[in-house]
């Protein structure tokens, strides 16, 4: 369980760096994400319902299920299954018997518990986190929430409480339970931009344009979505304001030809995208307002799918067909210092990790006529060019996108002609499907 090397051997790509690398640095993919650390054994007690409001049972059910899933999804816990947990639902620190939770079969080091009530249309939740082995001063967290009583809010409050626990126990990295995923869905008949919670709940359409819209990218402040949309003269980059609920102007994105695959810089001030306006598709950068447009590359062949280094906002990775089939490259934002990262096959759809260290991308290492065509998701350490394959023998995988915690990746998987959105931990474990209705594509994880 602890050693990923047994199941996912790491192959060294760059011969030049081979000699310089320590031979047994197998936890490289976990650096900064705590994924490789020993997992904390944690239990989530069912919350105690308080009062007789008829809304309470349904809200409690939504809350309990969401909190349990959030802690299970976090990637840093060994979550006590419900069948091993005590039946008790302690509603306060006075009511909990910590010994009951630390003993077998639960063996929990930490336990989350509390009380929930619905009163006069308000949802009130008290949540605690106790360290079961610290009998003198067990309380790690105590939180109170008072919100409108609704299913949505019950889930939201559970997400907030889960994120508090994850922040406290996960090395100071914010949890992702309150983040969103933007994606393309064709379930209404045309490809539109959709939004959902990180766990697949609350799926709803954002755009209703009736054309084909692709490649949604949410701005770092969650206010605008940039995407590509088919118009009369080709593909335009359009931007949609979530605050105003309508399209807002992005003049640099319309020029005829194919303007596509936008990417926000981490500070939200710039958008990079691919445009064919010069007669060949190149990477261009504009201010977020759509002004100050400049071209970055001048390379024959398709140049698409830029992604910024979100730590520096000074480098861009992208996919280029300059030598034939597309490969992943990095460069400075002015086009200097181009470096090729993949050596062969068909590599597209890079996404730069929030800590700046890794790229995840889709790669078919044996692409070609007659080849079976298994496109999988990979993570590469940019400095060493060492990579790890995250998906294996399951459909055609594309469009990976990092979660802000560095620990999770969302991606598209097509099986039998239908595409769905999946998420996983950034070591390839914990894969689960988030969408089931229609076909869904090109997910993009929000920045916070």
């Amino acid at each position: 369980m602890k050693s990923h090397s047994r199941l996912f051997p790491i192959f060294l790509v760059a011969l030049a760096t081979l000699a310089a690398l320590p031979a047994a640095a197998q936890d490289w993919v976990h650096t900064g994400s705590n994924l490789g650390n020993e997992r904390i054994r944690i239990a989530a007690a069912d919350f105690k319902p308080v009062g007789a409001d008829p809304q309470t049972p349904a809200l409690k059910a939504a809350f309990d299920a969401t909190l349990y899933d959030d802690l299970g999804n976090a990637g840093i816990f060994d979550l006590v299954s419900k069948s091993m947990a005590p039946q008790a639902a302690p509603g306060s620190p006075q009511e909990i018997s910590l010994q009951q939770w630390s003993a077998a079969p639960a063996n929990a080091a930490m336990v989350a518990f509390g009380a929930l009530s619905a009163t006069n249309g308000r949802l009130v939740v008290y949540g605690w986190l106790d360290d079961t082995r610290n009998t003198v001063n067990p309380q790690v967290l105590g939180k109170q929430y008072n919100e409108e009583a609704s299913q949505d809010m019950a889930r939201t409050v559970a997400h907030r409480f889960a994120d508090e626990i994850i922040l406290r126990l996960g090395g100071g990295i914010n949890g992702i339970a309150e983040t969103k995923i933007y994606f393309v869905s064709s379930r209404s008949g045309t490809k539109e931009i959709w939004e959902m919670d990180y766990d697949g709940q609350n799926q709803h359409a954002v755009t209703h344009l009736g054309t084909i819209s692709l490649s949604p990218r949410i701005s770092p402040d969650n206010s605008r979505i940039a995407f590509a949309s088919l118009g009369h003269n080709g593909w335009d980059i359009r931007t949609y304001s979530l605050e105003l609920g309508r399209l807002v102007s992005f003049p640099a994105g319309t020029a005829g030809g194919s303007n596509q695959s936008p990417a926000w810089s981490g500070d939200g001030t710039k958008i990079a995208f691919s445009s064919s306006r010069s007669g060949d598709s190149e990477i261009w950068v504009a201010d977020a307002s759509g002004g100050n447009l400049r071209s970055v590359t001048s390379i024959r062949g398709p140049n698409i799918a830029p992604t910024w280094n979100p730590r520096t906002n000074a480098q861009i990775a992208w996919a280029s067909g300059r030598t034939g089939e597309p490969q992943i490259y990095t460069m400075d934002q002015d086009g200097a210092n181009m470096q090729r990262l993949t050596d062969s096959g068909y590599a597209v759809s890079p996404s730069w990790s929030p800590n700046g260290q890794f790229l995840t991308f889709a790669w078919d290492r044996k692409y070609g006529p007659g080849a079976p065509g298994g496109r999988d998701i990979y993570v590469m350490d940019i400095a060493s060019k060492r990579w790890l394959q995250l998906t294996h023998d399951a459909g055609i995988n594309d469009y990976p996108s990092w979660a802000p915690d560095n620990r999770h990746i969302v991606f598209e998987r097509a099986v039998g002609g239908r595409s769905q959105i999946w998420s996983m931990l950034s070591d390839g474990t914990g894969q689960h499907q988030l969408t089931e209705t229609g076909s869904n594509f090109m997910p993009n994880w929000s920045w916070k």
Partner: protein
Amino acid sequence: MNRLNRILVPVALLIALITVAGCGKKPKHVPASETAPAAIAPAPTAQFSATPAQVAAGDQVQLSWHTTEATTVSIDGIGDVPTSGVKTVTPSESTTYHLVAKGDGGSAEATARVIVNGPPAVEVPTTTMSAEEAFKANVQDIFFDYDTYDIRADSQATLSKDASYLASHPDVKVVIGGYCDERGSNEYNLALGQNRADAARNALITAGVAASRIRVISYGKEKPFCSESTEECWQLNRRDGFTIDQ
């Protein structure tokens, strides 16, 4: 191995479940609070004409229309029609055709008047090809090799014929659509389809067709002509498609 099974078995079950239950499932009921406000899209525009505008009873009239930003277009008495198109009608009396284009940004209307004179003429032979049929018969698609946008030798001859038809029909405008097979990634295929369409555009311009008569759109793999995963089908999809720009 156990761990792999733990991943694979649920995945396989999920896939099986979706295969069994997913297809016939009704779309989830969307509560009102989940419906995002509609975008303010540009207002639709509509152009609509009838040629000739004056005919004898029994003669054919060609209605042609072109709309932008419209999602549904209908003509009174005909019903729903594509957002752009042509249709041949045979009005028995003077008629005003009324077209309504509706889109996210509102609606647009246009009318086309046909005056019908006198008694029915002698039956008109129907063997004359419409402009669209003639275009299709003379301007043919070209095909590309895998993951390339170079014009093949066999396509050079096709493009020469396409160019000479366009040279002899200076009123015809053309849309070149660039298409790809299903194997690549959507974004890369948009760029590849653009390069394929641009390659044909450049060849037509070199052959003397005015650039202003050519509109280019990359469809990548978004609008496949053929949907099977076979080499024959992929070849059909790796193409430039030519249509009249209405």
